[in-house]
């Protein structure tokens, strides 16, 4: 996973998705903290599909894969591999 992807994703989550006043980092818990709700996660999946040309299966959209930006990047890696 390139650093560029990681930076773009973080920038997107911070600017358009997160509702938390604190900056989201790679390991910040997004869902349980309430910074991102399910609508936000799905907007993230849409972003991944549009920007990275990866198809995200609805069944993959789970806490395990989307709880933190780091987990998302791991998921992106596993799917693009």
């Amino acid at each position, binding site marked *: 996973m390139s650093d560029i992807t990681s930076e773009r994703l973080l920038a997107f989550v911070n600017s*358009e*998705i*997160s*509702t*938390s006043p604190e900056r989201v980092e790679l390991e910040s818990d997004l*869902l349980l903290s309430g910074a991102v*709700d*399910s*609508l936000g*996660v*799905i*907007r993230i*999946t*849409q*972003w991944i*599909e*549009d920007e990275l040309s990866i198809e995200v299966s*609805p*069944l993959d*959209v*789970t*806490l395990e894969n*989307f709880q933190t930006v780091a987990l998302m990047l791991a998921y992106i890696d596993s799917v693009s591999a």
Partner: protein
Amino acid sequence: MTVHEQPVALRPAQALSRTQELIWLGERLVPDAPIANMATVSRFDGAIDPARFVAAVDQAVRAHEALRTVFLDVAGSAHVKVVPSPPTTTEVVEIAAAEVDGWIESRISKPLDVANCSYDSVLIDSGGAWIWLMNVHHLVIDATSSAIVFQAVAAAYRGQTTIEPSSFAGHLGLLQQRQSNPRWRKASEHWAAVERRSRAPQLYSSAEAPDADASRVQIRLSDDEQDRLDELLEGELRSLSAGLGLAAILAAATAVYRSRLTGELTTVFGVPIHNRDRQSLTVVGPLIELFPMELRLAPDDTFRAVHKRALRALFDVMGNAQPETSPAQSFDVVLNVSTAQFGMFGDIKTRTEWIPSGAVDPNHGLRVQSYDWDGQGELQIALDINHSVASSDQIALAGMHFGSVLRALMDDLDSGIGEFSILADGEAEQLDRYNETIDVDARETTVVEQVRTRLNLRRDEIVVDDGSVALTGGEFLKRVDGVAATLVEARIGREDIVGICLPGSLDAVIAIHAVLRAGAAFTPIDPSYPRERQRHIREDAGLALVIDRLPDVGASETELVFPDLGDVAYVIYTSGSTGLAKGVPITHRGLADYLHFAGDSYLTADASPTVALFSSLSFDLTITSLFLPMLVGGMLRVHESGGVPALGEIVAERQVDFLKATPSHLELLLRLDRDDDGLDIRTLIVGGEAFTTDLGRRLAKRYPIAQIFNEYGPTEAVVGCMVYRFADEFDRGPAVPIGRPAPGVRLFVLDEFQQLAPVGVAGELYIARSSMASGYLNRPELTAERFVQLPGIAEGLLYRTGDKVILNHGEERLTMVYLGRVDEQIKAQGVRLEPGEVEAAINSHPAIAQSAVRLWSAEQASTPTARCPSCGLPNNVPGAQFDGDGVCQTCRHYESVKEQASSYFRTVDDLRRELDDARTRSTGEYDVLHLLSGGKDSTYALYRLVDLGARVRTMTLDNGFISDGALDNVRRAVADLGIDHEFVTTDAMNEIFRDSLERFSNVCNGCYKTIYTLSVNIAHELGIPLITTGLSRGQLFETRLTPGQFSAERFDPDAIDRAVLEARKVYHRTEDAVSKLLDVSLFETDEVFDQIRFLDFYRYFDVELSEMLRFLDDYAPWIRPADTGRSTNCLINAAGISVHRMEQGFHNYAVPYSWDVKLGHKTRAEALEELDDPVDDEAVEAILDEIGYVPRPAAELTAWFVQAPGTAPVDIDDLRQHVATLVPAHALPGAFVAVDEIALSPNGKVATGRLPAPTKLNRLSGQTIPASTPVEETIAAIWAEVLGLEAIGIDNDFFELGGNSLRALEMIVWVSNSYELAIPEVVAFQKRTIRALAIVVERLVLESIVALDDGGTAAELSRVDD
């Protein structure tokens, strides 16, 4: 009133959000219903200080601007205003605990007055328990906002002095900036491309009209079920959040639920998206937006597959949802899984509930809701059901049915969506009780033996009479035995089938009884059937013999045996879907069962009815009359003439007291039986067609002593298997029910998945009767399809009827109602037929490769596929013709006659002379009555008339739908000029609109006629001799002139004027709503037409559009409507356009606009854009409801065919003759349309929507007699030209072929010129066929020759108008 003017757009002072607009419009539809009330009730688990609480609410209201926003209704549009301080304060009331719920319910049942205050806050002290009711209008709030307000009040109550403020208007402003964001643009485009869906069918039978009333039903899950749901949400069906997981489950369950009730496999949900991000997290306002989500099912889906698809669909919606991008559409199903949480009120535990107001947006038939507002972790599931999709007493059942689906899903995700029963507790038992009938006695003897036993007791009584021959029981048996013996001698016996090819005569009755007596079965062959069909029956049934006349009988000693109950008694042929009629064999047991039931149901034991035999023997309805009188003490009166003549005999003789007939025949009977006393009919059995309550009532009134029965039964299930006794005092539905099963019959209403449908839900009828047919002759595949085994429903065979029925609660018991056919089978002229049979007949013609037969309705044709490149005339206008370049014939004509046409127009000097003449003829204060609509044309004309010195009075018809802008223009103009003006109106307007829609499928004709009628009355009263109109030149071409007139060599404007005058007389004397409701006495004599003349201003005055607008800008207080390019200042117009499209298949402005383009008053692009304007269906529906009109798309049996390659062009008449020999008359298509190919839909069915519309020519009757004399030929050629048709028969009516008064005038001018005659225009209205017109022409030609011989100069005209 002209159609060429612009509407006035009323713009709100401040734009509403999309959600607000929908709410605003929804509320306009049902202004008295509280559909936008969002009420929450918070019950505090602790004491509240009322003063502190009231102040806290006020503080929250100050912080959140939305709560201080009010909405003023300015002519239907919302003007938004923010008030500085709380517009109301919290009321504190004391209410006894027992009364709280009722009090709240009543408090929120009225709509909030958003013009003054958008919320209602009440603190209730209920014996020390504190309750807060907060009812807020949806225009300013959504669920999340409610929670924000709740927390704001809690914070203020705790003493927090600064509450974070929010402004919804500010939020909308921020969103504006978002519009350059590519994701927002992408979302916008995504939703713009989503198709608009129409309203789905209702779920349950319902007597209630669509309105806002709704009820909520909670889906109650047992503890085990709740555990199972939690288990799924945390395990197999786990998603990001419990809410999302539940949303997917509910979406799947809802789609399955709907498909089981309606058969619809596609559900489009409205899904609310909260649309909040960091900037808008704490904004109070209606941020929520509904986005469409489509979920499709396949019949063999498992729940797991549906769930997966639902999750994908939810993700698609959520991924594409961006604020203010939702498409403006209405939804009949809404799926709302609310995530809003209220939580605690500071440190006071609180339980907050959302209270339904008893009303929902009437568009939302079904709302599936889930919420967990107090954050207790328990998700509640509820359905809000509009009473238009389920009546109030079906709502609880609906909850149980939905629960059945949810349980089936939870039980086994891998089970099929059609594999479970949806029935609620007790419903299966209820359906069983419906099928409980008295036991049928085992029939021990055949009808042959029963008839013999009975007639032996009546050897000397007359038992059959055909009007000339009457036979006693003994004589009848003797004749029957004689013929039977002859048959047996000819080796006819058991297992043989004998054709009876005779009309319904005494001989036929004897022959039928004789065939049975000989042990054989009979097959009726109607001698009027086409020969091919007769041949098919003979071959298919393998007839041993066909009796077409009764054999001579000698003395015989041949011994006769009786048939067995299991032997076939008759084989009747019915229409078949595979192209050929199919034989249905019925055994003696079936025949005996049915007749036993019929005798018990229709007659008393000692009855001696006189029964008419007059219907076709090949119709199984006739079986009843053929046998029943012989089984009781009755007499069969045979009417060999059959049909209408037979009904005439029945009426004349007044003998018959037992009649079985179709509704069509009974309609005729009512018309024939006109004596003061009706026939003494005691028993009337109606069968064969849908029986309406209306007919039932008229029959009951005419035949008061008659018992009227509605008997239902397909041939396959033996004549009749269910019956209903009509009861005038109870039956109020449109159709007379078909009732309850005959003894031994069980009836099942099944859904698409062959599962039992609940009571009140439509499905297909399946019949179980032990003695019914077990299949078709020689048709194993068809037999397997229609005679099915469904062990889950019943043992043994079930006959699948293809009839759509519903079980309803009748007076006391369940009663079945017939709704129509489920498959493509068509009823043409009341008789059921299969398109396949007709198609097979067409395809058997050697020159035909392929064909499709459908009922064609104008609705299908409303989209044009090509338009004239010059004027934009669309090709779906009937009669429009285009040349090789696609240019329309009218344009071609017009080009060549442009110059000549100008001679119709006059000069300003001519106008001055007309005005001077009016001055001298005036007997009052005014010269002119000007019809002022408020549009640019009539306003400009008014200014010019005043400039020319005319003493003008103006009149405007206020039809109730004129836009305010147009009315303002009228008021300003007349004030500016200081002239006398009158708004006229009439109470009859709605009835006139209705009548106009009925006659012309538009509203304008009725409106124009009202204007003309009222204006002539006013002019007459005030002594005004001249009425001026502002019809544009385009309209003049459309209504006064046709290009053909110019093609004739001697164009004569005076002839046109004379014709227009004649047409006016006919017009005003036509009987319609206007003539009935308004005073038209003036028009009785010709005098008024001379006294009061009409003048079209723009015939005298030519002005460029730009010049006209400049003049109005500079000199008149006329305000150009803001929304340019739209066509009308009359709001009812949309309804007219919509109805015209639906009923006539094309836009009623297509022709006038093409003239506007030709004359340069509009560009082609402008005209097309206007014609393609979408019509607001809901607004149209509301208008049509208001005036009480139901559109009726016309339907006609139509055949489309593709010619076989390499064959000579098909002669349509030849094809028609060919088909007529193969199919019964009712199945002969009315129109035959040649096409290059028959388009198919993706799943291989004929794409009905893509079949081209039949034209008038395609509909010409088969008896087209071509012109034969030279005069007829000349006239036929002229008609063909004028009407745009070919090959017109000499007996076709000009007006039925699509002619109108203008075309008639054109035609007469042409004919006149051809023979150098001056034929009065009125002849066209009197001699409406080529044959009749030719006779007049020949006589005139003859007379003109005689006149010349006599030295005269011309024919005398006035003598031809007889």
